[in-house]
């Protein structure tokens, strides 16, 4: 039994997949692990992420399974689940072995690993959807828009394209406070991600004068739009889970 020990990054997991194929392992007896938990009778192989190998794996996956399924694999890898590397690995093996056509990688939901990877990707894409809905920007003194979020999964990379397309002429930052990760978009320029140090945590942000006004207006709007005769807090909670409210101006 072989266990590849990866780090929690897309590069590391894809490098491990490359190595497993390069070293001609028996895929049914090979595991990818993100943790250091020892396994009995297992041979540990540490993996160091390699850009070249990652690129090759990504190329193959995209050529064989199509862009959409590749994006789904990437989404599954952004999940907080620890078993994700193994699920991705076995899904890819299953797809290459069964000669899945483009866009049909996740068809075989009866397979345990495919279903696992599918469920992870679905979970992440649901959260991405939620963040697109519920993320709020606040205007800082210098006109920049700043948003603080605390997502379960690592979703900032999936949020940036949407907002960069939507607000091309704005300077904005999306800050993931759980991972200390910044998504930065300078006006009219491409966006990028920045992993911050502990000292970089934003503090004492000064908001613009108008910011408070508009927050108050929106709070009132949300309040007024409720039809009293139909009040249904349970439905509201179902559609808008409580964990997002900490970050939303209308619930402050």
């Amino acid at each position, binding site marked *: 039994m072989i266990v590849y020990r990866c780090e929690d990054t897309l590069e590391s997991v894809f490098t491990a997949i490359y190595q497993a194929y390069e070293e001609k392992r028996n895929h049914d007896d090979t595991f990818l692990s993100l943790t250091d938990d020892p396994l009995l009778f297992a041979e540990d192989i540490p993996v160091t992420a390699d850009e070249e190998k990652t690129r090759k794996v990504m190329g193959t996956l995209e050529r064989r399974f199509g862009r959409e399924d590749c994006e789904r694999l990437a989404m599954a890898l952004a999940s907080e689940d620890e078993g994700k590397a193994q699920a991705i690995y076995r899904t890819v093996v299953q797809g290459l072995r069964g000669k899945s056509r483009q866009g049909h990688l996740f068809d075989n939901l*009866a397979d345990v690993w495919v279903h696992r990877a599918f469920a992870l990707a679905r979970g992440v894409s649901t959260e991405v959807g939620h963040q697109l809905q519920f993320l*709020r920007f606040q205007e800082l003194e210098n006109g920049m*828009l700043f948003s603080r979020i605390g997502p379960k999964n690592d979703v900032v990379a999936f949020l940036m394209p949407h907002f960069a*397309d939507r*607000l091309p002429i*704005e300077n904005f930052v999306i800050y993931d406070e759980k991972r200390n990760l910044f998504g930065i978009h300078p006006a009219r320029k491409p966006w990028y991600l920045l992993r911050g140090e502990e000292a970089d945590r934003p503090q004492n942000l000064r908001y613009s004068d108008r910011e408070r006004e508009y927050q108050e207006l929106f709070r009132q709007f*949300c*309040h007024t*739009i409720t039809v009293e005769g139909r009040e249904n807090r349970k439905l*509201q909670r179902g559609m808008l889970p409580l964990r997002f409210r900490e970050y939303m101006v209308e619930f402050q």
Partner: protein
Amino acid sequence: MEYLVSKGEMPLEDKLNILTDAAKYDVACTSSGVDRKGDGKSIGNCVAAGICHSFSGDGRCISLLKILMTNECIFDCKYCRNRRSNDVPRATFTPEEICTLTMEFYRRNYIEGLFLSSGIIGNPTFTQELICRTVWLLRNRYRFNGYVHVKAIPGAAPEIIQQTGFLVDRMSVNLELPTAEGLRSLAPNKHRKSILTPMRQIQTGIQVNRNDLVLYRNAPKFVGGGQSTQMIIGATPESDYQIINVAESLYQKFDLKRVFYSAFVNVTGDKSLPALPGGPPLLREHRLYQADWLLRFYGFRAEELLDEKRPYFNVMLDPKEDWAVRHLERFPVEINRAPMEELLRVPGIGVKSAGRIVAARRSGSLTFPDLKKIGVVLKRALYFITCSGRMMYPVKIEEDYIVRNLTTEKDRVRFGSDGMSYKQLSLFDDVEFTRPVTVIERQQAAVGQL
């Protein structure tokens, strides 16, 4: 006698309050149907699925900045809060105010765009012009590229409706009441004909535009997100059968994207309106939406769901379950072989899971645990399907049995509530078992009378 005279301009806050309050009963408020990338110069894009940015206390989504241009109105519709004879505070937005509000809310990701309706001020054409001017300003001066939904005002000049159509993503004309008689009795200033005319105009406009777009790729889009309408449910005595028939013909003859149903809330207290002691008819509204989905995505026809003899939906079962138990001769359906259309008719299988079943059975035959993974609601589906010729449990394919099992414990008719008060005696499950002991009983027990 003194009259209150407003001193100067009303603050924006109060205006927003009044005009939001006046617009909140309009339900046709989604941001879906248009997929438009940002152009890199202006603010905004559109996502086909639509995005809800918040949910209000009634559980409905807040997607667009839903406001009226003004709540002054020359009409006197009996169900409407903004009717001429109602004594409510009145306000009017300037176009600039609407534009600034939309832009500032949009860049903070509060909203997905603007929903602009209006009371009739002056005459319908003038009102439509005001709306058109506001949207023009928003698109061209403020460079807003997001979603805009406006009302077409019945009775407005066709040219101005045409102009507005080129600026917005969706337009809607409210049908208000499903039948012409209902409209006549509650909305004396509106006529069926004046409502259907702009609807037809927009439909033709969209078709003509579609042909233009084939020829000239960069031709401006006319109402790209299609048109919608809304009907008030429960203000007039129409049956569900009439309502879904109207909805079906709107989908077929007018190419509507959506028909919205709005449970009637009595806000004016007019004597010709029904009193609703149990609150607005929310369950009825829910059933109508379920049926609406069946019409649009599941290949059902209106006369399959209801008919003259059964003009109302079942309160206990949803329309699909109801249809299925009345057509048991078509079940059980074999999951591994049935075509998509038949899968779609099984309660508990939706459009998504039907698609997944068809894809997954290519790689091997499916079992019940697999169906669970795929997302089929087995609780409802198990009475109607087989996997490789077997049912999940030994169940009887019999109407009474299935209905009894489909309705949950709490929905079932409670013992005694239907006037039937006899039942098999049992020593152990006395219904009054958990009743607290009263003070009198305690005293009786103490003195040995009980």
